[in-house]
């Protein structure tokens, strides 16, 4: 099994990109490779035209990682001083603390900080090198609602300044609310790539369900061109479309269809539809 197999991505400067997928979709694996924390078995990774290690050494790429730890026995300020000392070009410790909203806990020991505060500290650390690209891996995992809101407020404020931000998440609302572009991944492959509204369009629309003996996909396809997908289960047809009124009108006036129902399909459903597979859903977990 491969956790990731062939993800080709070009991300434009200044974009805020969500890397959205269920747990085990290969998000962390991809990010690890982008940051040079692990090597692809085949192929190569470049970021800003450089090898990941080089880009990091130049301070062009920074990350807030789910898996990266902090030293518990030093203060927030010391953590930032230490991190800042490793780069040649840095923003001031005070300025990044302000931007991450942790100025008032500057002298607190890291072990006394809440999960959300530690995460904002990681964000401040990532800002120190003033990177062109900021990678956030599941940045709000384990935060409460307030912590999550504060965190995104800080990120959003920062993103206004032209930094490219790529974040992995399995929270649909986060991707929807904060990304210019959403990349949906499943089992290490991209299943959808578009703006939030485009992804929504993919998942918008409703499903018409009706009983229609003897229906074929071909005949329905030509009769209702607005159908996005047509599924036939025995005598039941399921037609997904953005114009379900037209589909229903056709079915009720031109065919013998009966027991017709129209059901809304939420963004959640679309997400599940796009990110789960019929054949490999079970084996996928073992890939990680």
């Amino acid at each position, binding site marked *: 099994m491969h956790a990731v197999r062939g993800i080709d991505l070009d991300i434009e400067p200044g974009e805020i990109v969500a890397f959205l997928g269920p747990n085990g979709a290969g998000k962390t694996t991809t990010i690890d490779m982008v940051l040079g924390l692990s090597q692809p078995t085949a192929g190569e990774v470049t970021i800003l035209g450089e090898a990941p290690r*080089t880009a990091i050494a130049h301070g*062009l790429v920074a990350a807030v990682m789910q898996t*990266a730890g902090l*030293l518990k*026995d030093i203060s927030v300020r*010391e953590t930032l001083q230490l991190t800042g*000392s490793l*780069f040649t070009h840095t923003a001031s410790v005070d300025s990044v603390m302000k931007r991450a909203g942790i100025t008032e806990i500057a002298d607190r020991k890291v072990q006394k900080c809440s999960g959300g505060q530690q995460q904002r500290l990681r964000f401040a650390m*990532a800002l120190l090198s003033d990177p062109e690209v900021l990678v956030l891996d599941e940045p709000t995992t384990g935060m409460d609602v307030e912590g999550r809101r504060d965190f995104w407020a800080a990120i959003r404020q920062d993103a206004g300044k032209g*930094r490219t931000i790529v974040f992995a998440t399995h929270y649909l609302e986060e991707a929807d609310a904060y990304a210019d572009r959403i990349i949906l991944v499943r089992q290490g492959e991209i299943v959808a790539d578009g703006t939030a509204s485009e992804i929504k369009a993919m998942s918008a629309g409703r499903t018409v369900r009706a009983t229609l003996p003897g229906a074929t996909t071909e005949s329905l396809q030509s009769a209702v061109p607005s159908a996005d997908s047509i599924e036939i289960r025995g005598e039941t047809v399921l037609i997904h479309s953005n114009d379900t009124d037209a589909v229903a009108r056709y079915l009720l006036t031109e065919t013998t269809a009966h027991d017709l129902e129209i059901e809304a399909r939420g963004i959640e459903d679309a997400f599940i539809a796009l990110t789960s597979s019929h054949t490999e859903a079970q084996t996928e977990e073992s890939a990680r």
Partner: protein
Amino acid sequence: MTTSASTASTASATTSVPAAGVVDRSLRKVPPMGGLNRTLAWIELKRVLRNRRTMIFSLVVPAAFYFLFGVGQTYTNDNAGRGNVGAFIMISMALYGAMISTTGGGAMVATERAQGWSRQLRLTPLSPIAYVTIKVAVAMVLGLLSILVVYICGLFTHAKMDSPWLFVATAAIAWAGSLVFAAFGLFMGYLLPSENVMQILGPGLALLAFGGGLFIPLTDGSAFEIFARFTPMYGISKLAHAPLTGDTVQWWWVANVVVWLAIFVGGAAWRLRGDTDRV
């Protein structure tokens, strides 16, 4: 797929952008010496000095042992060559303290790996070699403090040596030799993925101290002494005591130090390589 926002900032990548935006890459140099710097060293040193447990085991315990075994005993003022037995025990306890300190300093990498800090550091320009260098340097500073504390206790009590230079020479040898244990700590730190690596190593270090004759003098030619010749504290202990005892330096003392240093450095390098491949 490009949004209008991204197109706008593509253009700005080559033009000017305020502060936090796209950067001037000519300013982005890789730091010299793999990221080694004074701030890093100072914070790392502060971490060690603030750790109460480290302070007790590295500074208080060896000094206490010196007072316990080396001061006011019937043998304290017996002749030990160019000084008295009190001085001999002072050197032994300084070695013991240096061993605990340097091993503990090196073994800090285990805690930092367990906490995920080394992964965090991989997101910075700090090179693995620079990281290890800092760990060893801090371990050696702690080792030196440990030796100094015991020696100061010795100077103010009954440790006597014929010349002040003997104090300097024995301390210097003990300190230089404790590099073996800094490497040992590093190796163990990479080998044992534990937050409490010193609790595992503690009893082992005590045994090595016996092998160096730090607690009970080794009787030359005895079975235990011959066995002890192959343990890592033996060579350092013999060499550090030699200026006091006046014993002729034997080749196997030096060989002991060189071989163990090579084993521990090699082991640490081997594990370090495996670590940076994976992380």
